[in-house]
């Protein structure tokens, strides 16, 4: 994984405390996990969620971007296809090209795939139905900003809730992303027919990730588990690491 070129110009305040890192949460019409994701980021001391709108053309003063789940544009045409054409996604592409962290969850993953920022496609589940259930996954790498605290082989329990989550990639390209360590999460009990049990992937550089399970649903005291916190805490750790060691 390449080192990011330049990091957001964050400065230690006079008190010696690092101001919180800003995490942009993107809202499209039809996004419905926006508030959940916002609250999950908010629950991490050191991260500050900030709303990003689908029509904004630039992203400024933001350290990481998360595209939450939902049904952007009603899933009309094809899941994620319309959102991938919005101004904010062009801005996110530039943001990612600078090596900054981007995560797409569920519909956010579909949008990143549709916009070609991540490889592959997300097809209708093998069961052809919506599936909402707990589906444990195993981390395959600790090398993305969202896996820092999840060494290879770490099993966490997250829920899935989707109808189009069957990850697909032709055999040749599949071998390539496996070889380059771009598969970041695999299902323990493949719920939807994804190739190689893939639940999440990253780009080659490792700064853009997408996953179908919902980490933001496993952060509260009252949740069945709090495993989702690990992804957001990973983000904080990796942002701090890069802050202190920019190159």
């Amino acid at each position, binding site marked *: 994984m390449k080192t990011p070129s330049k990091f957001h110009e964050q400065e230690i305040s006079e008190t010696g405390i690092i101001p919180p890192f800003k995490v942009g949460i993107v809202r499209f*019409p*039809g996004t*419905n*996990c926006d*508030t*959940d994701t916002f*609250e*999950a980021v908010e629950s991490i001391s050191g991260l500050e969620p900030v709303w990003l709108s689908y029509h904004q053309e630039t992203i400024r003063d933001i350290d990481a971007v998360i595209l939450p*789940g*939902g*049904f952007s*544009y*009603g*899933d*009309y045409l094809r899941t994620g296809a319309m959102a991938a054409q919005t101004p904010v996604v062009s801005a996110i592409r530039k943001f990612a090209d600078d090596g900054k962290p981007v995560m797409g969850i569920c519909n956010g993953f579909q949008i990143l795939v549709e916009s070609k920022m991540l490889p592959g496609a997300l097809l209708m589940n093998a069961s052809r*139905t*919506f*599936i*909402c*259930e707990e589906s444990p996954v195993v981390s395959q790498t600790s090398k993305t900003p969202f896996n820092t605290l999840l060494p290879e082989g770490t099993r966490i329990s997250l*829920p899935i*809730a989707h109808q189009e989550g069957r990850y697909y990639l032709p055999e040749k390209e599949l071998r390539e992303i496996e070889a380059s360590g771009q598969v970041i999460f695999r299902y323990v009990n493949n719920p939807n027919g994804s190739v190689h049990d893939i639940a999440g992937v990253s780009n080659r550089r490792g700064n853009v990730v997408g996953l179908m399970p*919902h980490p*933001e*649903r496993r*952060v*509260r005291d*009252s*949740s069945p588990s709090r495993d989702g916190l690990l992804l957001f805490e990973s983000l904080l750790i990796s942002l701090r690491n890069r802050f202190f060691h920019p190159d």
Partner: protein
Amino acid sequence: MTSTTSRFRIPPSEMEMIQSLLGREPSLTEEAVFSAMWSEHCSYKSSRIHLRSFSALHPRVKAGPGENAGIVQVQDGISVAFKMESHNHPSFLEPFQGSATGVGGILRDVIAMGARPVALANSLVFGSLRHPRHRTLFQRVVEGIAGYGNPAGIPTIAGETWFDDRYQSNILVNVMAVGIVKDQSIMSAKASREGLLAIYIGNMTGRDGVSGAAMASRGFTRDGDDLRPQVQIADPYAGKNLMEATLEIARRGLADSIQDMGAAGLTSSSTEMAGRAGLGMELDVSLVPLRDPTMEPWEILLSESQERMLVLATPQNAETILEIASSWHLSSAVIGKTISDARFVVRKKDHTLASIPISHLTDNAPLYQRPSVPTNRTPNSEAAPSMAGAHSLSDLFHRMIDHPNGGDPRWIYRHFDFEVQTRTVLGPGHDSAVIDLKSPSGSGIAISIVSQPHACARDPYRGGALIVSKAVTELAAVGAFPLALTDCLNFGNPENPVVMGEFQEAIRGIAEASIAFDIPVVSGNVSLYNETDQTSIPPTPMIGVTGLLPALRNRISGHTKAPGLKLAIVGYMENMSLGGSYLDWILEGDVQEAVPSVPYEKIRGLSSFMMASSARGSVTATRAVGRGGIVRTLLMMVASAPSLGFYLDLPKSIEPLGFFFSESPGRIVLAYSAEEESRISEMAKEWNVTFLPLGYTAPGVWTIRFRNMEGNLKEWTENLGVIKSRFQRALSQFMEELP
């Protein structure tokens, strides 16, 4: 054409009433307006007299019947709004759109009160899944509910189903929505004064669902296929945008009043909002955003196109409201205004098409005291004695869990996003669903949705009381006490005196029980004419009850995975009647016992006991004794742990059929660690509830040892793996084989 023949199927007697009220022939547009407003669906003309026995009087109630949804206060500054509604007729004709628009409609009722929806629940009754048609209907209804609730981002967290051939030609699809609202955002559907602008926001109006209200006010006949154009089409994407726009308008205090354009669309929303205040309404149909510009005025007035709201606001606020609508990609227009003359005036530019005193549409609408015959539900003492005792316990139990009615409902709820909004603390599969208010108080809202079709068919009065007591017991099981009730009364043809008798009896039971438990009835819906070719469905009232869980951390799950927990039953054990039970249904009504009456005082005691036990954290898991009786309830409790069973050794002699299979109200099964036993039994004494230890949870075992009334020691043992896999497959085996 004689003068009493209606182009909109208004009965001749009502056409005469219209002519005498107006003192002239109605115009085409006026006749259309009357057909909608006088339909059973809008006017409640057969039911209204009887609904008066429900009481909404309670200090917690902030909005009751007559509003879009009921509202009760749960803590300082925060209230919940909720309502339940049927979409039976449309779902039978077009199951996906029928159920999806049912969900959309009930959500808009809650949204119109200014509340953000946080939960959906449903109660579904179908014919037997042996019929391929019902498998398809069921599949598509489940997908339709998911197809609206999931994209709208509202978790579907509770539900129940019943499959019964008495519903082969009329399925029931009832949905409930619950929302949270801050006091300052509570809206009303009552105009405050004249001179308010009527602002249309939402999807454009099309020809879909024209006369839907009138359709739902008739029975089906064999040639019912031609009704499909009267079913509306859902657009959850626009619906979600409309939700956000409406909530923004309410939150910013821009609206005077809001109403969903539901049944009879523009007509009912505009006349009702003005009518509640004794005002009039003037509309210009040429200003309504249309999908098809060739639509006739009467079509525009009766269209039930989805995702539309009518907002009344002062002229100063109109501009901002239109801007909000457009920022959410919605059509909007000022289409009329409230006037001091209490008439409904419809114009198309300069032409006046209708001018009707609003009281003729609402207060002077027909009100029928339909003839009824008393229902005789006392058991037949002449009948041959029950054969239930001739079957082995094991055989009876297998028949229960092999049937979709007794099987695992997981196939259904995995279609529903039951976790979006991250409020779900107890989701589907528990007695009551529990959601997090996300307020500093740490409290939660519990939701229980209940029907008991077989008990209500056997005795609608006792059945009505039973469903209320079941909901109270289910709320108690998770540690909640009841706040308020909403109902959906599904019956057959009210012109049939037998049906009308059942209707009155069911209402008597629900009203009696809700008063006994001090639960206000804050909203509701009546669905009549559930009949096909003159055959009516059995009486099927359904209720949804919200409860308050003062501290979420005290909630009690309905599942356990832990071996070695003690099991006990608490509550009222004096009546072990099998009348109206699932066993009675499995044996085709063979059990000649009365449907049990409700021991109100005992259930109030049980509720208090559960509140105290949950506050002390003594109990690990609980379940109200439900469908199938104690043994099936225990199975549900250990169902999520593949290898967990139980070993029961009953301390006293029992009459096995009643003990194992009775669904008499007011009993809860508890699982707790052994060291808590003395404390729990002490508390039971304190609250005067019977406490009976049963045994404990155990890995790999399913054994029940007991003495029958003759004093003989018996042992009932099952292969745990076989039981669990049969339970899991009972419903899914029908559905997963669909082509």
